[in-house]
């Protein structure tokens, strides 16, 4: 009996009907433990069967460390889908695996469920992200449940539901507690006071049914009591079997139960009759995970340990290799250190191959603990080191640092110079990622110094390459070449392809940046070589660097294409960090080409989702500048944090724009003038020593505009040079040729000696790109100079009939944007072509467009089409 869930069930069933006709949906179901998520899923399964549709459920396990892609495994074996099974067995084939899953989803119409996402491993969440973005093109309704009371704001599941939540055909629901009326219905015919029951259980269905089943006269004060009361009514043999079952997370095989509790068929039946255990495939499980948890913790510790060891023995006996994650779980719970050492490293490797790095780290951690018990320090150091590597791949930087330090200490005590040097190089990389430039440099220097007096080794090649990276971030081009070339020579000599490609990419980037390799051909060659060698991560990072340098050269068409290709690649290969960095760069591109809306929106989206400091500093600088130019609130909030991060890195690539942004904001908002001038002048020193002609130029110009000019001592990029030389119109033309309308206008309005009509046009340009504050300040200054007849800004919108599109019209519009013809749209929506024509006509009229292309453009401008990284057009590389 499913109480008070009709609306939610109907939503799922309605979407099943739509899925049959070719339009899938993703439904997130959140709620506290015991609220009835599984009951809803079961009702949905029944509904699917009524419609002659297949239904499959996969669950994330409450294992100490979950199996990678657990739910997918469950479903793939049940379907069965040989292609997916083969890819799962094969190992690292993430991209093929995801596309195979998508293909399966586009097959027969089905209902799929992923339960208990709060226990999901990283790979499952990535898969769900990938499928969720494309769910409308499948024929599946995918229901994903999770406990929302166990998640904090930064939990990966929250990020997932937030990111996907506004996508096409994605629904989110939270199950509320039962009302008093429903609890009263449950309690009909029982001697328990329904009001008392409701008050104590607060409408939680599981708690309420447990209490009713326990049949005690009074109402227990906690779920635990209720579960124990129910268990107390069992015979001793049944209680024993229950205890064994409680030790096995998720499903316990019948054979396992019988092996550990011989001749207990009757006892097991009793548990089933009492409703505590239910049948599940080839085994049994607790009716609810809460009950299992309570029973497990009620077992005496020694007994629990012994049971786990026996379960592990059974797993081994079963042959064909025990499931690794399960084996590790029972080995750890049974304090069986040898078994942990046997299984955990393999489990870690397997998780890493699936891209579940968080889980990989946890397994290595368990192995390290076991190695400690076995008193084997070098093993401990090795496992801790691997754990640290896995942490850095899963964005757990603080943990990664601490773990590398720990392994470093152990190796220092053992006098193992090679590993000490290698770990220092790793620490250097992590410190760079976090933004501690000085600490990174020190670690890198120490690593190289230690290793270069030892015989040549792969560790030395890696350390040299890492040190080249430090130099690259600090724009020390000569050092990049020096360290980088040594690294390449040594790596190629030792056959270390990955290190060689890594170093070649740094060299290519440096040469491209300083103009020694104008086409970026060296960097492009490094990307290709990485692709050929299957070095996905290097390819991803190098694509990011290519786009970044093109952007810093203001080659916007090339940068835009590189960003689109790069984001697509990184997204598909699961390099979340690179996606974040590139989206931040894309925001910067939008700002520089005068699209303040896109810049602020993308920067905001990046800040909501990504934590990495080098991503945030770029996004914050862009956001602060966009707000200042528009006169929106929150300017200093963004720029102060940007400066704080930039200051920590001491890298001119961040300090330069941040300082210029602060001075720009000070002039536009008339606040913090002196402080901003000071900061800009100090940063100029660094730019003169280490910056590019663009970074230095910007700082010189803003200082001059602020009335605090500094003597020019370095080479400047052309538009800045012209402005400082008193040629505002030439400067504006140079900016115009690059495609930077804001800078073009500002050169005229703040440079010296511009003529009046140019000034008026510049103000108009600022207003047209929405830089209202900049326009207002410029207008005031022009009036002070006695110039009249300054344009007042775009006409306010005449709003007679706002363009409110109906839901149907929005649907048609989105299909238009995907390039479908009227005939294809009518087939997709199951309406006549005449109806489609009517809708299209209405859409065009409401948007004030004359053709489909215009309508799509207007719709994009109004933000009516959903944007996700993977929908950016990607020209083939």
């Amino acid at each position, binding site marked *: 009996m499913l109480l008070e869930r009709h609306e939610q069930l109907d939503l799922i069933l309605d979407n099943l009907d739509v899925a049959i006709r070719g339009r899938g949906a993703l439904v997130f179901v959140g709620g506290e433990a015991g609220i009835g998520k599984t009951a809803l899923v079961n009702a949905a399964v029944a509904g699917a069967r009524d419609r002659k549709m297949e239904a499959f459920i996969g669950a994330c396990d409450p294992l100490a460390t979950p199996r990678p892609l657990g739910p997918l495994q469950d479903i793939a074996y049940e379907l069965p889908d040989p292609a997916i099974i083969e890819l799962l067995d094969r190992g690292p084939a993430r991209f093929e695996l995801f596309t195979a899953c998508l293909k399966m989803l586009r097959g027969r119409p089905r209902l799929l469920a992923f339960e208990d996402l709060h226990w999901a491993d990283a790979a499952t969440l990535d898969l769900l992200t990938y499928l969720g973005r494309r769910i409308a093109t499948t024929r599946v309704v995918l229901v994903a449940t999770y406990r929302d009371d166990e998640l904090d704001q930064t939990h990966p599941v929250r990020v997932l539901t937030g990111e996907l939540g*506004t996508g096409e055909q994605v629904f989110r629901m939270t199950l509320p507690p039962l009302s008093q009326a429903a609890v009263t219905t449950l309690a009909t015919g029982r001697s328990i006071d329904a009001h008392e029951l409701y008050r104590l259980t607060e409408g939680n269905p599981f708690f309420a049914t447990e209490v009713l089943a326990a049949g005690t006269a009074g109402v227990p004060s906690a779920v635990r009591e209720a579960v124990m009361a129910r268990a107390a009514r069992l015979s001793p043999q049944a209680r024993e079997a229950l205890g064994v079952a409680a030790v096995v997370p998720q499903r316990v095989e019948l054979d396992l139960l019988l092996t550990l509790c011989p001749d207990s068929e009757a006892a097991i039946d009793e548990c089933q009759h009492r409703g505590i255990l239910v049948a599940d495939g080839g085994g049994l499980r607790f009716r609810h995970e809460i009950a299992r948890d309570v029973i497990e913790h009620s077992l005496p510790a020694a007994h629990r340990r012994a049971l786990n060891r026996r379960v592990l023995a059974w797993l081994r006996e079963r042959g064909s290799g025990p499931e690794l994650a399960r084996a590790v779980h029972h080995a750890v719970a049974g304090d069986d250190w040898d078994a942990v050492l046997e299984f955990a490293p393999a489990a870690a490797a397997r998780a890493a191959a699936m891209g579940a790095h968080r889980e990989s780290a946890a397994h290595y951690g368990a192995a390290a603990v076991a190695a400690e018990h076995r008193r084997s320090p070098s093993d401990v150091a090795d496992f801790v080191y691997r754990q640290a590597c896995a942490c850095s791949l899963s964005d757990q930087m603080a943990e990664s640092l601490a773990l590398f330090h720990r392994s470093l200490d152990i190796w220092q005590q053992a006098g193992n110079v090679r590993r000490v040097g290698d770990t220092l190089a790793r620490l250097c990389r992590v410190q760079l990622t976090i933004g501690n430039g000085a600490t990174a440099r020190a670690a890198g220097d120490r690593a190289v110094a230690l290793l270069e007096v030892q015989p040549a080794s792969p560790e030395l090649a890696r350390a040299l390459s890492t040190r080249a990276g430090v130099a690259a971030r600090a724009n020390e081009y000569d050092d990049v070449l020096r360290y980088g070339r040594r690294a390449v020579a040594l790596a190629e000599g030792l056959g270390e392809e990955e290190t060689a490609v890594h170093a070649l990419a740094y060299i290519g980037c440096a040469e491209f940046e300083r103009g020694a390799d104008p086409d970026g051909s060296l960097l492009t060659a490094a990307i290709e070589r990485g692709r050929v060698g299957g070095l996905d991560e290097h390819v991803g990072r190098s694509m990011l660097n290519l786009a970044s340098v093109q952007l810093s050269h203001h080659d916007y068409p090339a940068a835009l294409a590189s960003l689109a290709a790069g984001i697509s690649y990184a997204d598909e290969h699961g390099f979340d960090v690179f996606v974040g960095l590139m989206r931040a760069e894309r925001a910067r591109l939008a700002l520089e080409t005068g699209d303040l*809306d896109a810049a*602020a*929106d993308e920067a*905001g989206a990046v800040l909501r989702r990504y934590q990495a400091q080098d991503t945030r500093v770029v996004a914050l600088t862009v956001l602060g500048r966009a*707000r200042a130019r528009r*006169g*929106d*609130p*929150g300017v200093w909030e963004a720029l102060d944090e940007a400066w704080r991060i930039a200051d920590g890195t001491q890298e001119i690539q961040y300090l330069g724009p941040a300082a210029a942004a602060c001075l720009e904001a000070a002039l536009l908002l008339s606040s913090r003038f002196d402080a901003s001038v000071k900061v800009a002048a100090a940063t100029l020193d660094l730019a003169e020593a280490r910056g590019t002609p663009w970074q230095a130029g910007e700082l010189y110009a803003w200082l001059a505009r602020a009335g605090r000019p500094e003597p020019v001592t370095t080479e400047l990029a052309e538009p800045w040079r012209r402005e400082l030389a008193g040629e505002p119109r030439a400067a504006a033309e140079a900016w115009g040729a690059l495609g930077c309308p804001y800078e073009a206008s500002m050169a005229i309005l703040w440079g010296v000696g511009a003529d009046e009509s140019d000034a008026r046009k510049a103000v108009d340009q600022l207003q047209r790109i929405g830089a*209202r504050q900049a326009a207002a300040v410029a207008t005031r200054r022009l009036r002070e100079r006695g110039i009249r007849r300054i344009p007042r800004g775009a*006409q*306010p*919108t*005449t*709003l*007679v*009939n*706002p*363009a*409110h599109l109906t839901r149907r019209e929005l649907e048609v519009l989105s299909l238009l944007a995907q390039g479908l013809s009227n005939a294809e749209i009518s087939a997709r929506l199951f309406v006549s072509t005449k109806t489609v024509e009517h809708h299209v006509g209405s859409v065009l009229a409401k948007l004030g467009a004359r053709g489909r292309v215009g309508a799509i453009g207007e719709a994009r*401008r*109004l*933000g*009516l089409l959903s944007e996700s990284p993977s929908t950016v057009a990607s020209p083939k590389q």
Partner: protein
Amino acid sequence: MRRYVVERSFADGVGMSAAVSSAEACRATLEANARADVTWIHSYVSSDGSKSFCLYEAPTPEAVRRASTLNRLPVDSITEVRTLDPYPFGSPSPKSAPVGAKQAI
């Protein structure tokens, strides 16, 4: 969540009323706001409909702009605000109670 006041200027004198001119327009306005994560609290509109000051609750100024764009409303300026009222030190004493208030006997 923050509060923002948006100043708008309208040339046609219809102004903000268009946003609630019918049940459908109202629903569409609120839906668009929800999509942008913005809550419209209320607006002050001039008698001739040419100017309005609209109070919103939103996480960022960009969300407010997005909602305005979706509803095709012009934005002159956005200001972050806090509510302030004239009784920061408690309610007025009984001697200065408003006319018509019941007197305690």
